[in-house]
């Protein structure tokens, strides 16, 4: 099956990137979702969506003052006008030669590279490799809504592992987070409080 692209890269560094996507493509990406950016030579860069921004402009600011905005105008603005949704992605590792590495990619992806959502198989393969080394990238990044991002990631990933016959993955991931944050009590409490919102953890 042909993978569905969700956007193209606008700018990147070695740790993260921002991609643009049309509003009509907004169904695919979700906060905490895992994405893949294919590179030359079989390199696949993996990342987690940690922010989404929808920019306005002068016309949109004026249109919101209208009493009733017609569907035609809404469709025009979402389909035709050049106001992309910006999605920020934190790099959490890469795969090359059949091996998964929870390390930063060798080089950042380039402008207009295509970005795809990860399949359940790709997510399970990446997150089950090693011992949750990719958590380091989340814990190191400043200004992230860490608890919310971890909760979203676990909420989306745990059911995939359970369906794949690995129900212990969630418990192991939580234990690993507690270990990594054991010396940072405020962040640990914040993370655990947010994880407590997940129905299947209660």
């Amino acid at each position, binding site marked *: 099956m042909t993978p569905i692209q969700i956007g193209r890269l606008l700018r990147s560094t070695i740790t993260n990137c921002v991609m643009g996507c049309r509003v009509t493509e907004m169904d695919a990406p979700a906060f905490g979702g895992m994405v893949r950016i294919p590179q030359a030579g079989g390199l696949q860069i993996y990342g987690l969506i940690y922010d989404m921004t929808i920019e306005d402009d002068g*016309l949109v600011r*004026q*249109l*919101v*003052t*209208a*009493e*009733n*905005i*017609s*569907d*035609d*105008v809404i*469709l*025009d603005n979402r*389909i*035709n*006008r050049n106001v992309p949704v910006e999605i920020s992605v934190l790099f959490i590792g890469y795969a090359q030669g059949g091996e998964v590495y929870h390390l930063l990619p060798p080089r950042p992806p380039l402008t207009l590279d295509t970005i795809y959502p990860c399949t359940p198989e790709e997510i399970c393969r990446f997150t089950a490799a090693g011992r949750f080394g990719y958590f380091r990238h989340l814990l190191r990044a400043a200004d992230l809504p860490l608890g919310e991002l971890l909760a979203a990631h676990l909420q989306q990933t745990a059911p995939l592992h359970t369906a794949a016959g690995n129900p212990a993955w969630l418990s192991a991931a939580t234990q690993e987070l507690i270990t990594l944050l054991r010396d940072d009590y405020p962040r640990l409490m914040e993370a655990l409080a947010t994880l407590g919102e997940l129905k299947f953890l209660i």
Partner: protein
Amino acid sequence: MPVNFQQLREQIHEMGQNAPALQAERQDRLDQASRLLNELANDLPALTELVGRAAALAPHLRCATPAAEPLDLTAPARPPDPHLTLLAADGSQINPSAHDSVPFGVINVGVFEMHPGQGSPPLVHTRSRLLTPEEVFTDHGMLGEEVVALMRDLREREELLELARQHPVPVITLTDGPLELYHEPQDNARFRRELQHYTEVLEELAAAGVVAAGYVEKSRSDLLVRLLELAQLDREGRLAQAGKDRPFKFITDIELLRSRIGPGERSAVLGIQTAAEGHFTGRLAVHYFYINVSPTAKPYLARVEIPAWVAQSQPLVALLHGALLWQCQQMGAHASPYALHRAHEVAVVRLDEKQQIEDMITAELRRQKVAVEQKSHKQANKELPGKRRRP
């Protein structure tokens, strides 16, 4: 040198001091004109006869002529037609300049296509045309801004015609500005050729039953006021002074009608008395009405120009009126046709885009081993970094 604000401050102060007296004088003239409008609103045959007599005395007379509706008529809008196709066009151009390294021009036309309430997303169409150095130079020198502007107006109409033919009626084509063109110099052969083609396209739109309309904001037109001036002069036995003596000078039609037309309403449709040798005659003779697009009690009037064959059809005037009002309602606080704004967004050529095109042309010419001149020193100096450019 910066502006001498001290000198300007004194002049602004003086202007402010004179303003109340001028305003009072103006209000007096406006009241007189308004009273005359009330008196004569239904005397359409007499007014038509009056215009005929005045035109015989002053061949270049230009004023409103009564059509079928009382002059003080106001009419509410209908909801937009559920089967309507609306096409709005706008254009922009790069005028050739002898100061550039390669003299070239570009005409860029954007058309916004909309089918209100029919569930399909609007479409945008763009057509860009390069005016090569061979086209830019004529026997009389470089193409002037007026000719390029007319070429742009013509391309807008051609694009509208091409797209309009793809849809069943009712179709409305909308452009920004008047239908009637005033560009100078009208004695230029190239200009006359383009203008002739322009009216031919309008004829083809008419033949296809496609409504053509020009939307004019902040109109300073005073044709209705000039008609009332004829009546005033006639009463004073001075009709021979028609067009020369202006009893209601500086009063505009919008000022006269502003308090009469309610939110969403339109005025009467009026014709225009103009010189017989004009290009816009017969079924293309320009007519117009005013529409109050303001959603609030504070009126905001725009002028809408239409050809005679549309003006003579009440259903088509109602169709256009409803569509325009609906368009303006989409824009919120600054009511103006949404489709025209979008066409402008699509068409506009920015200064940096002009530079990109010039770079593309010089690169191509150099690839072909053709010598390229440099920009004028004056232009190069204007583009020095740090200099703020006018938009």
